């Protein structure tokens, strides 16, 4: 089975390196095909491993040593267990589809080859992230996906906004990574190892304070990667990247790494439930917070991005409250329908010649039926309507919140569900139905190439049926992570389900009703509340004003005023002082013989005078 493991891991790397050879050349179709094939190989191996793990249990290999210094030893070790194999399957599945999709999507791009190289590199990093058997290995993947995300967001580097967004994403992640590093150091100095097994075995023995600190630091890392408040702004800006990237990285896989981390470190977090609750609270807050921003946004991709944020919030609620398998389940289902949604959005963008404003679309159903259906399916799944995948996972999270007695969280999630349903269908309505606004701009949309649509079908299918695997999934995953039992009476449970379904349906209904009639009036956009939301609570502006600008000003100040005018100046002034004292001393050398003789005599006399004073004192 080790061969499957290594194949699953290194096929993407091979793909990336192979394609990279042609990166500087003009488009070559085979690069896309080879990359897709290799990723597909990786996917197949992942599925094989899934079956294998199911049958024979986890697989653990140590490839080689990496770092050894002092007491520290870090190997390149990989573990395929119930959690990581789920992640592997999800990642490779979505990746394969995105690769195939990209062959169509990036068809006209002159950097076609480069794109596949980056994309495969991302898959490799993600595989390392999920497969590592230690925290530092995870950190390699963690940073690796960050790098690929930077490369891919800034893929169209000639656009200022793209490269800006890439940098923003990288730097924001770095901030969180620092927190994570601190967590790693703390783990090391208390456990002496980074291996998951060792750490989890030792964790119960550690003082609670330390476990809490570790938990907080690790979660700071997770917050960055999963774009939780207050490090969330990069995700929306990351939509500058090509749409397949958004689908793969910024919806299905990378951003869920934070959730994966919390699930992975579940044994640690279960020791410190209050930290878990804090995580859950933050998650619930983000769930509503992000959804509210999605309500008014007009940018096709940003809406979906906010929705991703919101869904990540849901996952954190589950993970924070200890329902790890539910978090993982939602992670998986979300990956399916959200990437579908993004890929559909990509089709729309292509059709609209990269127009993103949904106010300028409308009535696209006529020209791109397949996409419209797929996106609608995804939206329904997102909204959590039975029997679509989202219903099963999301509903479970609400139940968990209720079960824990965290009614506040439940309420927040409940509202979030309604909002989700509304904005999803606002999008669907504005894009596919209603007035054909795009005609004004002279655009004649057409649907994507057939193979692109076919590529999406598996995702569509999974978005519909994935929910039904819930019991199997639970049984499988809880072999590793702790089980979670819900003690709500059945009646209440059904009531809750009904309520959730109800609010979701009413959200959909409201959206459909309202946008069938041309949407809200313009006057609403003038309201303070609307402006607040459409400006994302002014948070980006706040960062700009309070962090970036002061930092720039301060940096300039430090350089020009402190470094040049104080530190360097001091050095120069010392040198100048010595030099100018030389100019002064030079005056002694007047060249006049009388002066020279006087110096001699006066010097002697002064000493004589001192001598007399000194002897008198003695």
């Amino acid at each position, binding site marked *: 089975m080790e061969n499957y493991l290594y194949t699953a891991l290194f096929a993407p790397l091979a793909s990336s390196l192979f394609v990279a050879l042609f990166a500087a050349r003009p488009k070559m179709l085979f690069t896309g095909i080879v990359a897709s094939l290799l990723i597909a190989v990786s996917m197949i191996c992942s599925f094989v491993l899934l079956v294998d793990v199911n049958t024979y249990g986890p697989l653990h290999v140590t490839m080689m040593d990496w770092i050894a210094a002092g007491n520290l030893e870090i190997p390149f070790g990989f573990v395929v267990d119930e959690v990581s194999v789920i992640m592997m399957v999800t990642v490779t599945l979505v990746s394969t589809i995105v690769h195939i999709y990209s062959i169509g999507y990036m068809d006209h791009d002159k950097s076609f080859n480069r794109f596949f190289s980056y994309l495969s590199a991302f898959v490799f990093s993600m595989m390392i992230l999920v497969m590592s058997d230690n925290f530092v290995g995870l950190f390699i993947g963690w940073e690796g996906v960050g790098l690929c995300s930077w490369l891919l967001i800034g893929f169209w580097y000639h656009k200022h906004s793209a490269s800006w967004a890439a940098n923003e994403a990288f730097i924001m992640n770095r901030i969180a990574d620092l927190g994570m590093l601190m967590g790693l150091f703390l783990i090391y100095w208390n456990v002496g190892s980074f291996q998951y097994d060792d750490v989890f075995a030792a964790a119960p023995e550690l003082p609670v304070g330390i476990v809490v600190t570790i938990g907080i630091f690790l979660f700071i890392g997770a917050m960055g990667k999963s774009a939780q408040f207050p490090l969330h702004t990069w995700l929306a800006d990351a939509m500058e990247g090509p749409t397949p990237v958004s689908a793969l990285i910024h919806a299905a896989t990378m951003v869920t790494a934070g959730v994966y981390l919390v699930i992975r470190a579940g044994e640690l977090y279960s020791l410190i439930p209050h930290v878990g609750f804090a995580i859950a609270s933050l998650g619930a807050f983000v769930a509503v917070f992000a959804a509210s921003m999605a309500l008014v946004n007009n940018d096709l991709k940003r809406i979906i991005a906010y929705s991703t944020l919101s869904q990540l919030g849901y996952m954190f609620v589950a993970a924070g409250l200890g329902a790890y398998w539910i978090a993982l389940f939602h992670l998986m289902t979300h990956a399916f329908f959200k990437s579908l949604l993004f890929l559909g959005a990509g089709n729309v963008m292509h059709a609209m010649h990269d127009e993103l404003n949904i106010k300028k679309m409308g009535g696209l159903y006529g020209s791109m039926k397949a996409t419209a259906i797929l996106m609608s399916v995804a939206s329904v799944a997102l909204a959590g309507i039975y029997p679509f995948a989202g219903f099963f996972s999301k509903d479970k999270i609400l139940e968990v919140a209720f079960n824990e007695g965290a009614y506040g969280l439940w309420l927040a999630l409940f509202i979030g569900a309604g909002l989700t349903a509304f904005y999803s269908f606002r999008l669907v309505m504005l894009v596919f139905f209603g007035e054909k606004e795009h005609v004004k701009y002279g655009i004649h949309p057409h649907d994507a190439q057939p193979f692109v649509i076919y590529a999406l079908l598996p995702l569509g299918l999974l978005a519909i049926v994935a929910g039904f695997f819930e019991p199997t999934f639970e049984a499988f995953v809880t072999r590793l992570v702790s089980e979670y039992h819900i003690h709500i009476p059945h009646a209440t449970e059904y009531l809750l389900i009904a309520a959730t379904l109800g609010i979701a349906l009413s959200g959909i209904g409201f959206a459909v009703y309202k946008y069938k009639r041309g949407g809200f009036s313009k006057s609403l956009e003038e309201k303070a509340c609307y402006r607040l939301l459409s400006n994302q609570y002014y948070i980006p502006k706040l960062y700009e004003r309070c962090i970036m600008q002061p930092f720039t000003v301060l940096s300039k100040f430090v350089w020009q005023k402190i470094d040049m005018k104080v530190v360097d100046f001091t050095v120069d002034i010392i040198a100048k002082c010595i030099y100018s004292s030389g100019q002064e001393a030079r005056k002694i050398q007047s*060249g006049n013989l*009388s002066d020279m003789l006087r110096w001699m005599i006066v010097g002697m006399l002064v000493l004589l005078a001192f001598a007399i004073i000194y002897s008198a004192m003695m």
Partner: protein
Amino acid sequence: MIGLTHYLVLTGILFSIGLVGVMRRTNLLMLFFSTEILLNAVNIGFVAVSKFYGDLSGQMFAFFIIAVAASEVAVGLGLLILWYKRNGSVDLNSLQMMRG
């Protein structure tokens, strides 16, 4: 009775006169005179002390100083004449080519 102290005071006075002369004079010739006064002041002291101790070396020293003073004058005057021939002046202030 004129004792050692008186001679030594004389030495001191002459030496001071010499020093003042060295500091104040701007004529080279006068400057040389002043240095001669310095040496002769020392001579008086040596002879007096020598007599006081009844030791000959002081007087020997004095003789050597006289001899050295004489050769100094020879060299000094030679230089002075060279300078005078070249510059037509024996003023110290004409000796200021090199400075700084």
